[in-house]
């Protein structure tokens, strides 16, 4: 894999999404930030995302709903959830549906990096990897 992996961030909190995107870029990834699930879904390069980081609580479509939508539409992008309101019930639901990780805010760089690397590994192992 010669290309730089694309990581997408969906979070309605502007500071969080720009800071996370900046951190990922400083780590050498190509990061794209979106303010809502709808904005992400209408992105033309949706299928190029190697790892999706999504907030759980968002107005409109929540992170978990986004995950369900992607699965039913055949997108198998590995997902990392981030939340400031960790709830076991939602964590369980997300993990059962195949999420890579469910991180509580605030999280630190090593935590995020470890999850991103696992997600990229999973993305590479996928059978229909383009």
């Amino acid at each position, binding site marked *: 894999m010669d290309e730089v992996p694309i990581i997408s961030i969906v979070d309605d909190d502007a*500071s969080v999404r*720009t*800071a996370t995107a900046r*951190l990922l870029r*400083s780590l050498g990834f190509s990061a794209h930030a979106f303010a809502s699930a709808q904005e992400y879904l209408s992105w033309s390069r949706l299928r190029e995302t190697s790892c999706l980081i999504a907030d759980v*609580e968002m107005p409109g479509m929540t992170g978990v709903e986004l995950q369900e939508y992607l699965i039913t539409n055949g997108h198998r992008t590995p997902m990392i959830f981030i939340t400031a309101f960790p709830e076991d019930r939602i964590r369980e639901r997300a993990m059962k549906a195949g999420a890579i990780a469910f991180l*509580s*805010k*605030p999280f*630190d760089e090593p935590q995020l990096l470890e999850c991103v690397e696992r997600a990229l590994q999973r993305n590479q192992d996928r059978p229909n990897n383009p």
Partner: protein
Amino acid sequence: MSAVPGRLENEEFILSSLAPSTTQKRLALAVVLILLLGFFITAGPLSSVQLAPVGAFVPAYAAAMLVNDSITAVLLFAQFSILRSRALLAISSGYLFTALIMIPWMLTFPGVFAPRGMLGAGLQTTAWLYIVWHAGFPTFVITYATLKDRNPARRVSESSVRAVIVFSIAVTASFVCAATFLVIASDPLLPHLMLDTVHLSSLWPYAAGFASLLSLSALVLLWVRRRSVLDLWLIVVMCAFVIEMVLISFPVPARYTVGWYAGRVFGFLSGCLVLFVLLHEITTLYVRLLRAMLAQRRERQARLMTADAVSASIGHEIKQPLSAMIANAAAGVRLLDRGTPDLEEAKLAFREIVADGLRTGEVIDGIRAMFKKNARTRTSLNIHELLRETLALLAGELQAKRISVRVQTDEVLPEVKADRVQLQQVFVNLFTNAIDSMSSNDGPRVLGVTSEVHSSGGVIVSVTDTGTGVDPKQLDRIFNPLFTTKSHGMGMGFSICRSIIEAHDGQLWAVANGSSGATFQFLLPAHPADHPMKTSERLNDHPRVCPQVLGQQ
């Protein structure tokens, strides 16, 4: 735990003070009607039919009555120990009396254990014991009915309940022994109620009539003063007493007639019924009490959850800028660490850190604004009552952690205008913190709560613990929303408390007691209507109490 209210605030769960329901009244009426129906069937010609003496009947009947009435007595004594009313003591002793008198009555009954009865009984002994029994019990009932509406303040003191019960049992037992002895000793002198071991004399109706009159008086008195479930069923018992005596005496007074047997059976059935009703009522009340307790616990949890939800939502608001700050800081380090540092991007990251830091500060200011919004839910309330109520809510936890509570209050405390739920949250937070800080303490665990009138006319409340205490250097920091020394929790407690108190125009501060625990104090202004203050004397014009100065005391 000396101070937590242990006394029953209301007596709605106590049988002897509970009003009977319509169903119970109907049931009681039905029982009386059935008794009367049985009476009319067995009375008349059928009543005088002489049956064979059944040897086992008397001991079986007496044993059953003894057990039944003893259990009833125990249940009533238990009610007395809670309510401590003299009326209940009288009726409990009455049941004990009927239980105990069954013993000499059975032992002296001719032909049961000995042809002429045991204990050196004469021909008249058993009949006279029967009269003592049937005149004695209505006397106890009359005493009960006379005493029951007396001023509740004249109750037996809590400390002497046990002694009073033991004394009553001793007096009742002595009375039964004395009556037995007298009846046996004066057998030749007493008017003859028996002609032989089967037939009653012409004097019998007078003796039985006297006992019946007492029962009737008790019945009338109970009817006039009827109020509780217990009154209702004692009325039924008194009806059964009268019916029983009439059946034995009329038309032919003799033992072993159909009327004699039927009278016993009626008496026994009504006695059982009272016990069944008592047991049923107690079980029902227990269930109700349990439900009420569970409801109270749920309410408490709901309240604590509100505090939880408040801190969770504030936590959420703070965690967002915090995550951004951490990510930006990490990115900044990475950007500067490169072979050719990306200074422009790093500067952006640091500027955003500053902005998010300021945003966190705004969140905390927002907490105050949030508590100010609820000004219209404020009512005039007595702080002392609220803190006692809160202590009662935490009673289980305090007991489990072996913490004793000392409450002190000024006799006259001005009312304050406050949001009840919010103020209770302050108490819950302060108490829970005190409990937590003492739970690892090996020394004495004392939670002290005082509420006094402050010189400004307001109310000053102090919550003192003997826990780990607060480091004097950290006295100010503990009110910082993210400060916590606990391994769990977000440390929002004190910040919320201070916000609530300040939103009520009061002040909250901490005092370090060195190594011997911590004291939290808050001052609330008195309700203007309760304690008129001139404008110039408003609390805000007083010099603010300085936490640092207090901390050095």
